[in-house]
């Protein structure tokens, strides 16, 4: 499949409340020469249905893959949950004839068929595998040399390894490498690969917030000036809840949470207004002042 053109699968969380991720991702991808085509119609990737019905998840994911096949394009997603689901189901159906046949019986009802001829990838995988680190580095015109940040990969871009498999879940390198490509320093900290807690929101908020707090404490301990995420749910978990966690547990952080393409966008010379910085809840003006105009 062509490496410069993708069908963009937004997922549910991003249009619901994480526009800055989409705005900044579209900006940097365009600058890197990637063409994005919109999905002809939208169905959730299926992941939220998995706990209730595994089969419904398989069908919804397959439906999206079949729609992309009709367009003859690989899928790019910004949400690791969608990426993981589409990748996993794509492989399951490609490898298991009986399962593919069963799911295709359902898709037939909507005039679709899963053939297994495309791939689904997350933004980060596209950046590192298809575009390549060198081209990303070449696009950096304003290296963010004075900035020290921490990364947060989140679970679904790493695990389960068997299905995601482009980075080491125990010692992930891709996001760090991509952060360093912007000129910023990426700091190591305790329990980097831990869950943000987002999946427990609505089931047990207290556990969710304790997990987020734990992470923010570790990030604060190494004096990171910002935390960089690549998942809309992780971003909501930290950015939306940081103030709440500060109040609830009597902590102070003041750590802005940026979407990776916002960081890359700054290094590419885009203005903060073009990258959705005004959408962030935690004030990022300190790091913006620092990166402004500077070489």
């Amino acid at each position, binding site marked *: 499949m062509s490496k410069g053109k993708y069908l963009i699968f937004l997922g549910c969380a991003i*249009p619901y409340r994480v*526009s800055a991720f989409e705005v900044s991702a579209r900006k940097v991808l365009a600058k890197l020469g990637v063409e994005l085509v919109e999905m002809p119609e939208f169905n959730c990737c299926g992941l939220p*249905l998995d706990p*209730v019905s595994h*089969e419904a998840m398989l069908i919804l994911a397959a439906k999206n893959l079949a729609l992309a096949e009709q367009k003859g394009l690989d899928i790019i997603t910004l949400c690791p949950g969608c990426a993981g689901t589409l990748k996993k189901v794509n492989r399951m159906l490609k490898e298991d004839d009986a399962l593919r046949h069963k799911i295709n019986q359902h898709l037939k009802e909507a005039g679709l068929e899963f053939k297994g001829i495309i791939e689904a990838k997350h933004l980060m995988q596209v950046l590192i595998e298809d575009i390549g680190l060198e081209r990303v580095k070449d696009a950096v015109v304003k290296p963010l040399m004075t900035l020290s940040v921490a990364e947060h990969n989140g679970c679904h871009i790493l695990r389960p390894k068997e299905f995601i498999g482009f980075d080491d879940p125990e010692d992930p390198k891709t996001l760090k490498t991509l952060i360093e490509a912007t000129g910023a320093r990426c700091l190591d900290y305790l329990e980097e690969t831990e869950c943000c807690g987002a999946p427990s929101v609505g089931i047990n908020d207290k556990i969710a917030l304790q997990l987020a707090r734990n992470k923010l404490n570790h990030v604060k301990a190494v004096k990171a000036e910002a935390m960089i995420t690549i998942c809309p749910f992780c971003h909501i978990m930290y950015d939306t809840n940081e103030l709440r966690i500060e109040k609830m547990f009597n902590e102070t952080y003041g750590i802005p949470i940026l979407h990776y393409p916002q960081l890359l966008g700054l290094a590419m010379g885009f203005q903060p207004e073009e990258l959705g910085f005004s959408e962030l809840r935690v004030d990022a003006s300190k790091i913006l002042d620092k990166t402004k105009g500077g070489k």
Partner: protein
Amino acid sequence: MTQTECKVIRASDINPRFKYEIKLHGAEKLMRCFQCGTCTSDCPIARYSESYRPRQIIRMAQLGLEDRILDSDTLWLCASCFTCTDRCPQGVEVASVIRVLRNLAAEKGHIPQVFKEQFSSILESGYAYKIPELRVKRRETLGLPPLPKGNPESIRKTLRGLKPEKLFEKSGGD
């Protein structure tokens, strides 16, 4: 009832066939578990929960304590982070076993409210959340292309005959 509450296990509480039944749904490697505790010690939820212990869920499933597992709220605490799946030395795929158990609990009508809401939203709009009209309109101001429309009719068609639809009817009113 919580999962860890002490309770005498009676032979009549046990469904001896449970371990075989759930195998068919994707929990094939359940019997490989040798109770080492790696899953529980690495589980982010177990760290902050008094009652959630994946190792214990696996043991209860092996034993066949069907009702106790399926009726328990703790089953829904798993964050599906897949740490246990990646680290289990026996390759049990713990997170998938928990998913199988949840699917069975859902068939019995036990579905937490959040999942019900997401499910009905997907059936209505294609999206798991009801996206506010304001957000949809604001896309233009932000320079974003229009949001792809959901196709609920085609979603319903492809999901027809599945257990969730029945489930949904069953649990819709409460």
